[in-house]
């Protein structure tokens, strides 16, 4: 069996169930080897010593005073046009924490609006495909003609 066939015999899924009876559980990624014989499909553990690469959406590093993370003189990894949005969020929280002060509610609402716009623009940016080239769908006889 070729290396490709061996690799493609594997599957993955996200396991949400907890191994513990109580407590917070972080989801796990499961990798298993699938073998089929007649009507039976078996899922066994993957061969050891093979590399697995996971791709996905990730959190940014944390802001830190010192140590590992985004230091005082460093910038977050998100695109620079959204950095100010983070500041708006904190200003909003500051006003929310002193609601009894005159005008705080309006100011909190003002900055919440900026924050929501930032999220909206960020979502749009995150969904773009970095490819503006067009493509054509070739019509076929008897189908959408």
């Amino acid at each position, binding site marked *: 069996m070729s290396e490709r066939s061996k690799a493609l015999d594997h599957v993955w899924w996200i396991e949400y169930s907890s191994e513990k009876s109580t407590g917070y559980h972080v989801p796990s990624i499961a990798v298993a080897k699938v073998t089929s014989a007649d009507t039976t499909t078996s899922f066994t553990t993957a061969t050891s010593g093979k590399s697995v690469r*996971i791709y996905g959406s990730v959190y940014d590093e944390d802001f830190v005073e010192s140590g590992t993370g985004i230091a005082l003189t460093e910038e977050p990894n998100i695109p620079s046009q959204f950095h100010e949005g983070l500041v708006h969020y904190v200003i909003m929280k500051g006003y929310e924490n002193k609601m009894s002060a005159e005008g705080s509610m309006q100011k909190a609402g003002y900055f919440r609006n900026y924050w929501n716009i930032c999220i909206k623009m960020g979502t749009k940016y995150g969904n773009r495909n970095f490819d503006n080239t067009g493509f054509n769908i070739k019509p076929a006889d008897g189908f959408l003609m």
Partner: protein
Amino acid sequence: MKQQQMIEMVQKHHPEMTETEIRIYLNKALDEFCEQTKILKGQETFTTTADTRYYKLDDLDSDGSGADQHKFIDVDRVDYNNYQISRLQEPPEKYSSS
């Protein structure tokens, strides 16, 4: 914008807020922003170990520390031995003993 500049911008509005307090909210904002927009993409590699089916997403290399890897929000794709493999929508009904 650097972290220090962000802190100074906040303190123009809220001079009573400490740097620690601002940093807590900045981290909250950054996490929320990444979660909702899924703007940052990353990848991590680990090596399979014998008789192990599950690998914790926050500690893929099982070294007891999640600080040495990306924190995943979701997983789009998995490569096994450099080949992209399929995702099962649901865990299998039954596992084999080995």
